[in-house]
């Protein structure tokens, strides 16, 4: 499986035309309904078994975008998969059943963006304290937001 074969397969199976990226990376945007099936396909068919990271981007009024990167370490290509949740939506299927590495990464996303990953076995804050208010990486959260002092 090479990078180009993988790109062709993605087009055939999921009908996703906009396969961008460079010689070692494929960048695809997947509809949120196909998020878990696509991850399964990436792991089993494309051989992207290495879970690199998962994160999110706040595109303000256009809503949140979840970004996941997985790698095929043998064939040396990476797959950057994205999904748009839509304005005001904060629910996304969890990838923990597919990749165990998604556990902590999705907890961090929940912590920082308030995205509720459905099907996550243990969705709670990871970096911030349990009593923290708000989700700091949202663009609506000001850098100088006051918070009560620690005790």
């Amino acid at each position, binding site marked *: 499986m090479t990078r180009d074969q993988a790109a062709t397969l993605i087009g055939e199976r999921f009908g996703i035309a906009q396969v961008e990226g460079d010689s070692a990376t494929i960048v695809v945007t997947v509809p949120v309904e196909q998020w878990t099936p696509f991850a399964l396909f990436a792991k089993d068919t494309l051989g992207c078994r290495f879970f690199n*990271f998962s994160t999110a981007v*706040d595109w303000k009024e256009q809503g949140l975008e979840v970004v996941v990167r997985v790698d095929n*370490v043998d064939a040396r290509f990476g797959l950057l998969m994205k999904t748009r949740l839509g304005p005001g939506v904060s629910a996304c299927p969890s990838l923990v059943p597919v990749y165990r590495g998604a*556990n902590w990464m999705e907890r961090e996303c929940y912590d920082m963006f308030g995205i509720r990953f459905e099907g996550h076995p243990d969705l709670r804050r990871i*970096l911030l304290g349990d009593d923290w208010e708000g989700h700091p990486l949202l663009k609506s959260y000001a850098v100088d937001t006051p918070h009560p002092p620690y005790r």
Partner: protein
Amino acid sequence: MSTVAPTKTVEFEYSGGERLTMNMGPQHPSAHGVFRAILTLEGEDVVGVDAVIGYLHRCHEKLSETLTYAQYPSIASKTDYVAAMTSEFAYVLAAEKIAKIEVPKRAQYLRVICAELQRVASHLLWLGTWCLDMGGALGGGATIFLYCIRERELVLDLFESLVGARLLYGFYQVGGTRYDIPPGWAETCRETVDLIDRRIDEYERMLEENPFFLARAKGVGLISRELAEDVGISGPLLRGSGVACDLRRAEPYSSYEDFDFRVPVETAGDCFARYRVRMVEFRESLKIVRQALDRLPEGPISSRPGLKSVAQVRVPKGEYYARVEGARGEVGCYLIADGSAKPYRMKWRGASFSNLAVLPHIIPGHKVADVVAIMGSVDPVFGEVDR
């Protein structure tokens, strides 16, 4: 007024099935920082673990949205403060890739020299502290630690004469490096490299002829290849589990393709395999430093004007995920630029974060004493875990 609950007396009658919850950390000497592991024990055996992190969180990702491309590299070094050079490296690579900024060959070589010296310094600290954790098995424990710190000082001295700082450098700048090597630096560097090379042989003999060390490291903390990839651990841990993945070889950046070095791989996946991978990496890093010093090209050290110039770094709209092989694994920076002077979003992929996430999968089933050995073999730096 609150009332005090009356004291309850609980009687224990141990029959083998009782469980005990034990807090390891946040202030535990083996944690190498602030990390709390809530262990569930059945006698000496660990049956469950909950890892609590975040004590060192500074929200680097939010901070980066408020700092320009010229300002942030010095802050990036504060994510992984034990290997500050490689953290800066990932950030400047991402910005350069989006802005299509060429880096002069001399700067690329200087970057490689510093990144490799940093790997040596970082591995020295790991070896010392890990052996300190293994404590009594090594005849008092502190012997190797003090030896390693002695050698690390030599590397830090080199950095000090190059940058002026010993821990957090700000050496990498978008477009090149901030300083050129001072006169005589290359010779001192060569002497240091030769010295460390000899000393590592010494440590290897001290450790590998010690039956207690072998007993504590071999067969402990097994990570299978399947688990390693699924959780996304990288660096010496991944290579200790049989995956020959080194970004310097797989995706050469900054002229790594010019150098001749070996990528060590071990298949056992235990603490000893990770130790072996790092011991070989020491030598390979020193080899790369020698080669880079030999072939260091002449020329400018940056394609941009100096740092104090008013010219901003212009980064057009775009996104890129740049990654480097740090001392602990893949240090990545996913940068989204919107054409302004500051990034729109920056995701920091800390190698230690992913590496630490493997602990809950491998610790259960071990004894409490092994937890310390396993944690040390993962080599987490909490500045990078919590960012």
